[in-house]
């Protein structure tokens, strides 16, 4: 059975997250707890261990802004040494990070960008992932990117090679895969084939969250600020059926409230077969359904993406 939890993004969110999980009938101790380590890294590791212990016996560290592919060697060493000091004390079951870029030339970007997945990046990534794993003494899980550009077609191949070279794992973000599919870049089916075949693992660990169409209407973004969409719910069901989905962490960064979290947890439970809906989903299909954003340069647009109706968000 899949264990479901809400990402603990920072200490301030604790009451909100606990209240939502209790409303769902799953108070502490939780099956697992995942923290966004970026917002906990300034704390004393022993304090952190003692704080997390009553919440769950199983802790995951999720790292967002390590920028481990772009740091200088010294900066990477400093980061890894600090992370390892926390890992030694807290002993997380899993550590995960991202394959992404955070710079264009000398400009720091406020949003992560997708890698090019070329040969140079492959060898650099392999060297850095190996170093990362040496420091933490365990497998590093890398999260898939919400592709919206053509090079995203190569993501599975890149991840597979990296896994073979370094022994790292995959943290599968279902909503990112949905963004890639709806952007006409990479169909979910390609991921499912990989996860059930060559990329199968004894236990798959997943993420799920919200995404949005940009204001200009020409691009989706993983935003973690909106409800789970029907497309994501459907994708979750397919992932749960096709893989051994051991854990699923729901990420919500903005527009966070107990009702919003509870509503999405219920959608997740229904999607992966853990529960029944007790109220209507907080969305409905718009009457005048419009096709998903057409992508002029789409190379792998699926039938599902072409037919996906535009959503109309309705407050529950």
């Amino acid at each position, binding site marked *: 059975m899949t264990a479901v939890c809400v990402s603990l993004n920072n200490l301030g969110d604790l009451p909100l997250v606990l209240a939502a999980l209790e409303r769902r009938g799953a108070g502490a101790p939780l099956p697992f707890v995942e923290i966004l380590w970026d917002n906990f890294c300034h704390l004393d590791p022993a304090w952190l261990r003692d704080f997390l212990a009553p919440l769950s016996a199983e802790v995951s560290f999720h790292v967002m802004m390590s920028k481990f592919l772009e740091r200088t060697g010294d900066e990477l060493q400093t980061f890894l040494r600090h992370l390892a000091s926390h890992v030694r004390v807290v002993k997380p079951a899993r550590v995960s990070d991202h394959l992404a870029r955070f710079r264009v030339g000398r400009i720091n970007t406020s949003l992560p960008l997708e890698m090019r997945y070329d040969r140079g990046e492959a060898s650099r990534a392999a060297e850095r992932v190996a170093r990362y794993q040496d420091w933490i003494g365990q497998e590093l899980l890398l999260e898939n990117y919400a592709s919206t*550009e053509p090079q995203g077609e190569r993501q599975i191949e890149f991840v597979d090679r990296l896994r073979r070279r370094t022994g790292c794992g995959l943290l599968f973000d279902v909503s990112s895969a949905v963004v890639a599919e709806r952007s006409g870049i990479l169909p979910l089916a390609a991921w499912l084939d990989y996860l059930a075949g060559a990329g199968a693992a004894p236990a798959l660990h997943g993420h799920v969250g919200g995404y949005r169409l940009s204001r200009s209407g020409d691009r989706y973004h993983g935003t973690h600020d909106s409800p789970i969409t029907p497309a994501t719910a459907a994708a979750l069901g397919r992932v749960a059926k096709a893989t051994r989905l051991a854990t699923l962490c729901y990420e919500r960064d903005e527009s966070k409230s107990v009702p919003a979290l509870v509503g999405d947890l219920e959608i997740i439970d229904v999607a992966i077969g853990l529960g029944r809906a007790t109220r209507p989903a907080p969305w409905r299909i718009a009457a005048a359904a419009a096709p998903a954003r057409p992508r002029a340069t789409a190379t792998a647009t699926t039938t599902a993406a072409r037919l996906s109706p535009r959503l109309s968000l309705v407050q529950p």
Partner: protein
Amino acid sequence: MSTLSREVRERSLREWYLADDRGPDAGPPPRPSRPHLAWHSPFALPLPGAGSVAQRARRIRKAGDIWLRNHDLRFSGQLWLWDEGAGTTWAFRRCREPGGQHLRLGPLPLVVLERGRRLFDHPVFYRETDDPELEALLLSLAPPREARAALAGRRRHHRASVRVTSRVPETEAAPAPAPRRGPRARSGRPPPG
């Protein structure tokens, strides 16, 4: 460069580097002179005439916000920034208590810390620290309501050890006191009662 990279770069120049501050006739923003941390971005582009006090204040607030969101994965719990040209200080403190909040303070009367580092060529200095004495100072400078919110989850006996006093009125137009340097840190405000 892909379309998305260009869009994100332009957005970042606008939101983090505050490139619009340079004025409509300034032309395209120059390249930053060297690689830098994300939270240094608001100071990475030169401002015409070193910028006004208000421009620097806006940049300090932006830098503090980027730092609090931890886009550089920094490990310190406090960031102090002071503008020696304006005679003002800002302080940022990461949440350390379950159910608490980040603290953003400023502008405060000038507090100059030892071992401060300069941000590019601006008269703005900073220090990241975990020093408990500086944290106590920071909390004492916070308005009572904000200090209470920040420390919401702290146990009673911890809270009792922090003295919270009323706030010095915020004004950027206040005459700048002479910078004060000390072995650790000094606040320009009178010692609490």
